[in-house]
């Protein structure tokens, strides 16, 4: 059972957390501009990385915050955890 360091609460047992899949999947800012293939890529396609992997976890039975975990999918070692940055997306305004 993993030990995971919630960036807000500290180190806790895996049972307090839930898994949220690959991190860094950005929702397209203009979904309507995407063709079916591109949309399907966003919607369904995820990496199946062997080795270092960035993923989302939620401290669901704790502070309920989502955060980023860097984990080795082979050894299960957790390398680092970090908060999600509070930044607005960089929206390109059409000239």
């Amino acid at each position: 059972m993993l030990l995971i360091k919630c960036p807000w609460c500290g180190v806790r047992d895996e049972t307090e957390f839930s898994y949220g899949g690959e991190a860094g999947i950005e929702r397209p800012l203009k979904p309507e501009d995407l063709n079916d293939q591109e949309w399907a890529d966003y919607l369904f396609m995820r990496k199946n990385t062997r080795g270092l992997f960035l993923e989302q976890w939620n401290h669901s039975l704790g502070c309920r915050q989502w955060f980023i975990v860097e984990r080795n999918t082979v050894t299960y070692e957790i390398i680092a955890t970090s908060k999600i940055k509070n930044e607005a997306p960089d929206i390109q305004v059409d000239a």
Partner: protein
Amino acid sequence: MQINRLKSGGQINRDKTLRFTFNGQSYKGYLGDTLASALLANGVDIVGRSFKYHRPRGIVGSGAEEPNAIFQIGSGATTEAGMRATQVELYDGLVAKSEKGWPSLSFDIAEVNDWCSKLFGAGFYYKTFMYPAKFWKIYEYFLRRMAGLGAAPREPDPDYYNHQNTHCDVLVVGAGPAGLMAALSAGKSGAKVIIADDQANFGGSLLASKELIEGLTADKWVSSQLQMLEELPNVTCLSRSTVFGYYDYNFLTINERCTNHLSEFTEGHVRQKLWRVRAKRVVLAQGAFERPLVFPNNDRPGVMLASAVSNYINRYGVLPGKNPILFTNNDSAYQAAIDMKIAGAKSVLVVDSRSEQPSDMVDEARNNGIELQFDAVIRNVIGHTKVKGVEISTYDSGSNTCAAQATKRTCDLLIYSGGWSPAVHLHSQSGGINKWDDNRHCFVPHTTKQASFSIGSCNGTWSLEDCLKEGIACGRDVAGSLNLKVNDINLPITKKIKLNPMMPLWQVIAENSVENLPKQFLDYQNDTTVSDIYLAVREGYTGIEHVKRYTALGFGTDQGKLGNINGMAILAIALGKPIAEIGTTTFRPAYTPVSFGVCAGEDIGEMFEPTRKTAIHDFHTESKAPFEIVGQWLRPWYFPKDDEDMSSAVIRECLATRSSLGIMDASTLGKIDVCGKDAVTFLEKIYTHDVAKMAVGQCAYGVMLGEDGMIKDDGVMARLGENHFYLTTTTGGAATVMSWLEQWLQTEWPHLTVYLTSLTDQLSTIALVGPNSRRVLQKLVDADLSNDNFPFMKTCKSEIAGLKVDLFRVSFSGELAFEINVNSNFALYIWNLLMVTGRDFEITPYGTETMHVLRAEKGFIIVGQDTDGSINPHDAGLGWLVSKEKDFIGKRSLERVDSIRSDRKQLVGLLSVDNKSVIPEGAQLIEKKSPSGPTPMYGHVSSSYFSPVLGHPIALALIESGRNRIGDKLLAISSDAKAIEVTIAKPIFYDPKGERQHAK
């Protein structure tokens, strides 16, 4: 008669006689016996029948490695299957049965398998019972009966089990010489230590040892060490406690058996405990397993491991034979011969495959009058139900060949030892790697993945002095690594013994002649033989994991503790590769079997899941309403009057509500408060409808989609202020919707300022439903509820009896209706007030069943019943809710090719043609006149009820191109009713114009 019991000796209490039965026969043993030692004392030779060939089998070992003496213990609700007699402590009244052997141990009908064994090689089950598939049920019945894998109790387990979580600096696994020293050394340095051992007493191999330590006998020395450990407040000693799992980040599980040794059932006590331990450091000192030697008929009852023989003599005062022969390739086994002789065996012969070399053990054996024969092997065993003798041949260790001619010797016990295999189980479970050691001829721990240390014989360290030394050093290192002040302990003084190295002897008879010889067993529990390994290789299997699965080597409940290494070595020989290249199979938890009871612990019955009750629950119980479990909530199903049955109650509740006034507890709805300056921006993404266009005070029915475009949840939402909203979700979806909203906010749009607060428990919701609802509610509130002032889909704040309430003019029934939100602390009071006020209109409480009928009459969906994760809003007839002007989660998916197919399943109504048959929910819909052969299935019935107000059955269904097929006739087919002819209809059956809910 305990014919094999010695007059004295052992750690048993001869003053405490215990009675027990084995296969119906009564026996006696002593306190301190295991079931195995007591059976041996009573001269019981056959304890079971083997899995495939049904050969008679006897006790081989004395611990976790035992493959044959596996019993059903106890009866009725407290019976346990798969118990190793070598690890079952005897108690008075113990009832044991062998699991294998039908109809009896001495006459086993399936022993014919042994005589026809040419047919039963590796892969036999795969090859024979595969076809035809429909016969599998018949095969299975006989296979299970013949295999005899024990029986689970049919009654609930009356025992009590619990779990305990703990942290420690050091967990020491195994309390033999190395483990004791490590625990003492770390403990004296101040570390918080847990030391666990699976036996009743600490000491491990020392319990049967005759060595002197510090001038004390081994057992006395162990007691002195244990006393020191127990005096340390920072050390916890757990006996009868098996560390069975080693998981990530030094998380380990221990199964402590608290009362198993006292009786079959001990009222008022915890029977077993599951310790969940997070340790900073783990010290593995589990010891080693002795290996059998592999030769023809090496499975006959009366063949026993050398270490087991020493255990039975020295610990239990049992002499398992009078006239034994010991077959060995190493020095350690000599101890068993010496113990036999000292305990009174008439003549003892040692057959050693090695040439003679000077050794302390050889000298001691000779001094005790033991006959020795070197450069010799056992090449066959004589006797069927009991060893009667052996065939001995000379052996040339240079060429690894056994002479063709043999001499016969009688004996009543064949003791064997093929050397030792370190118990690397937990090390391997932890992710550690093992390496084959060519000097010690065993796998030893190589690299570790976690903060663990292997010491003593599980590290391939054999001599007592070295084990003690390693334990002390390990305890010191561990304490040092934890920054504790190291408090050294002295190395106890032991006698130095000169030992000669073992000789690898994986199989006595060369491979090319194996086929024509009697079977040479590797895995007793699964009847895997040497020729099975060769067969697997001939059929193309080369990897150990494949050979394991094909031959079932190590697949039993003992996980190959006895036979795996021999099997791997023989695979190496068959493939012509070094053993190091074969590697081990994967070691998995549990190290020894663990009962389901202790895994479940207290999480059973009412403790399995929380039960949630609404604030109005007391009214429901007083009304004797049966409950329906929705999510974790108890919701009243219907409110029977007098001795009404469900269907009459529901008819009455429906008609009362439609004609006058009903009241329902809707408190289980998920309730979420949303506020913050970006609330509108956020909710525009979440809902399909135009949230921004809603006026303050406006309610709307909304659906949320997944990004795949499918309906995720639905409910009424209301705009309470410019940046303040109130959302409702389905009862079952409350928690997941809340988490899902948080996920979007935190991970995708963290720059939005929005606050989400769950109010599900804080607020209760009472629905007042029916044409007289306004009249009654108006009596209690100041707010003007007239249609002009408070029309359909509006919300306002008001007070009832001085209590703040939120009113919503919404309807899940199609009637004029109001939902009242009130602080849960006052909900029962408000409910009762409404009941009194509504008395003039015969206010009728109704439950979930009536709610379902009323909503189905209106064609309102239930998410999860009328949708299933593949239904988008257009399919459900909710296209009118979908904004064309803004983006929202799932919108892009609604434009995918698959989403705009014209033949998608669509929500429609169904009427039975005979106007009286209620169509079963789940029924499949097919053409009335189907061609023979496969029939296209157009959809299924999702909701179905008898409508009291209409006087006929109604149903909702999802049907391919359903909306284009209104008026078509189909057949509804289900497994539990005859086919019903149905007509496709629009899904709104009652008041299709919606005049009632808009009532003036």
